[in-house]
């Protein structure tokens, strides 16, 4: 009902009239970003499996699949449920799932869609086996390999042992997952060499598993920062970038994209201008998140105004020159580019899709809050 009300009042509204704060994605730019990554994957003969964590939205997942993706990733079973219930047919949970309740839900999903998940422990495999036996289905997994991120994942030797165990328990080992998520946090100059080291570890793991006589169909890696580096390695068969659908200011800063490539903006309204050089907008931590301790940036970089502090529902802008001080007035709508897209999208119930300056579609972010 809430969705109906929103669409009724805001569909076809010119974007500058939208009520704020609002997440607004430019659909033409979204499509350019999807095309660009798909073209990259195609040109290197790789499969693209976008991570849906960024948009948390079945409509956009299906759009990615229309553009040529083989399916999508999620981190959580509850996110996967939302996608499958809304027609997505191929989901990799690129994460360890522990606990029989969750695994039973996973098995249920595997009746309706092509599903796989990551494992990195004996217990994880034994639980998966139990659920597989109960449901009489063959379930699929990837062995999660730590390629330098030091989050989850095992060494290549341990990966071989786990693959062997999984196979002996009737679990289909589809390959390995070797997410090089640490690389993006290093200086760009180090990315090439760090990816090289990560893919060496992935290749070792693949070799060790194949020595056990188990086919490694897929080697899955590649987040948005390094997808176009990782995706060039022969060993890699599938890349899983997520943020590329929208990008964000963090990527502009790192040089992974240009400002014009950022497809999503957050519109806010100036609601107070207490002094000549201070304006206050109606978006703060509950609109943008602040997990990287970095503020969003104005889309129009010619306006000399900078966010300098956040409360939950306020953002304080410092107006840095005469023109900003006279231009920015109460009631003005300002367009901001988030610094970290994934956590920002997760704050909102809806994303507004805009084309040629008008709101064309309003999509509920169905995966929001699906943390289980």
């Amino acid at each position, binding site marked *: 009902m809430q969705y109906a009300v929103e669409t009724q009042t805001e569909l076809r509204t010119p974007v500058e*009239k939208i*009520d*704020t*704060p609002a997440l607004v994605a430019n659909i033409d730019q979204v499509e350019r970003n999807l095309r660009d990554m798909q073209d990259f994957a195609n040109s290197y003969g790789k499969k693209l499996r976008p991570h849906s*964590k960024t948009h948390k939205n079945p409509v956009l997942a299906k759009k990615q699949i229309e553009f040529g993706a083989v399916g999508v990733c999620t*981190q*959580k079973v509850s996110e996967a449920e939302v996608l499958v219930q809304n027609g997505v047919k191929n989901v990799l949970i690129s*994460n*360890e*799932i*522990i*606990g029989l*309740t*969750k695994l039973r839900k996973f098995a249920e999903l595997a009746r309706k869609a092509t599903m796989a998940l990551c494992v*990195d*422990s004996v*217990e*994880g495999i034994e639980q998966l086996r139990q659920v597989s036996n109960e449901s009489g289905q063959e379930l699929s997994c990837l062995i*999660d390999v*730590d390629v330098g991120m*030091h*989050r*989850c*994942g*095992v060494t290549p030797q341990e990966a071989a042992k786990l693959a062997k165990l999984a196979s002996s328990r009737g679990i289909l080992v589809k390959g390995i997952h070797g997410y090089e*998520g640490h690389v993006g946090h290093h200086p760009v100059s180090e990315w090439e060499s760090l990816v090289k080291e990560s893919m060496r570890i992935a290749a070792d793991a693949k070799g060790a598993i194949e020595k056990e006589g188990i086919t490694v169909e897929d080697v899955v890696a590649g987040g948005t920062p390094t997808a176009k580096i990782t995706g060039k390695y022969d060993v890699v068969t599938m890349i899983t970038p997520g943020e590329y659908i929208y990008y964000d200011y963090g990527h502009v800063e790192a040089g992974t994209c240009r400002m014009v490539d950022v497809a999503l903006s957050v519109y806010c*309204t*100036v*609601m*107070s*201008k*207490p002094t000549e050089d201070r304006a*206050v907008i*109606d*978006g703060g*931590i*509950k*609109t943008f*998140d*602040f*997990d990287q301790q970095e503020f969003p940036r104005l889309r129009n970089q010619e306006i000399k105004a900078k966010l300098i*502090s*956040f*409360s*939950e*529902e*306020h953002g*304080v802008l410092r107006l840095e020159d005469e023109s900003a001080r006279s231009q920015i007035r*109460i*009631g003005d709508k300002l367009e901001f580019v988030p610094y970290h897209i*994934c*956590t920002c999208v*997760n*704050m*909102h*119930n809806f994303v507004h899709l805009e084309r040629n300056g008008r709101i064309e579609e309003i999509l509920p972010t169905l995966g*929001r*809050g699906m*943390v*289980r």
Partner: protein
Amino acid sequence: MNLKDIETPALILDLDLMEKNIRKMSDYFRPRKAKLRPHIKNHKTPIIALKEIEAGAVGVAVAKLEEAEVMAYSGVRDILIMNQIVTEQKIERLLGLSKHADVVVAVDNVENVAKLSSMAGTHGVKLGVVIEVDIGHHRAGVHPGSEALALAQKIISAGNLKFRGLGGYQGHVSLIVDPQERKIEDAKACEKLVSTKDLIEEKGISVEVVSAGGTGTYDYTGNYRGITEVQAGSYVTMDVAYRNCGINFDCALSILSTVSSVPSEDRAILDSGLKSVSTDQGFPEIKGVEGIEVEKLSAEHMHLKLIGTNHTCLKLGDKVEVYPSDTDTTVNLHSQFYGVRDGEVEVVWPILARGKSR
């Protein structure tokens, strides 16, 4: 259902502790002139607001129009929107809402006052307003003193507004760790508000409401001469950041999490990351297990370091509870509370104002 059977990550509210916090706060305000007007930004949940009102609160404070709508349509009558509503689109909605609840909005600008008044006139509504005064936080708000007085006069002459009083928020004070320093800074902030009230009343204008304060200063602000309302919100669920300032309420809220990976003997991963627990006031704390350090969080993972010699304290599949540093921003990530008493789930409450940021 037992606590340990809840699927994770899950927002757990200890009902006994929450009720104790509500009792304690209402006991504090009962004998005092100042009353409690809890800010619902913390829980965003009508049933909790109604419990606070039942215990003696005069109404609620909210930051957003949509939050006010959720509260009003769930039965809360008295609502202070402690924020500016400036666009015509929102003012329309506000005026509509004002026909169904006692809504007061904060203003800090002459043109906004003129617009509110003319639109209120069109709607045949007399809209209540308070002036937001900047009492040192340097966010929104007019300067104390003559600027506030001038705006009060504009409000009265505007025609369709009812001047109710003053509001301020000493957000720069609430998390000062040293209680003595916090008290001194709070007094400076309160004095700015109260001296402004005195100035306006000297001109024969009655200032009925003087609303300020938060969980960090509830007792200082609540005892300050001339303050009529305190807007404490976080006390109800309480968090690590306020506990570290010596604020004496119980942490009633935790995130139940599962150990999803133990990659090496000195590391473990929980299934609750940045999308389950906020970090804007620092990392969360692990409840009731010694020798665990939170190293970092990614979107859906919490990285733990197991320190000391007891590396076996966490096993794969173990469930642990995590105390957030900031409950306001953590609650906002979730769709529901699991209300637990004596280890059993008693109720599941939807967080109806979650994501209501307009």
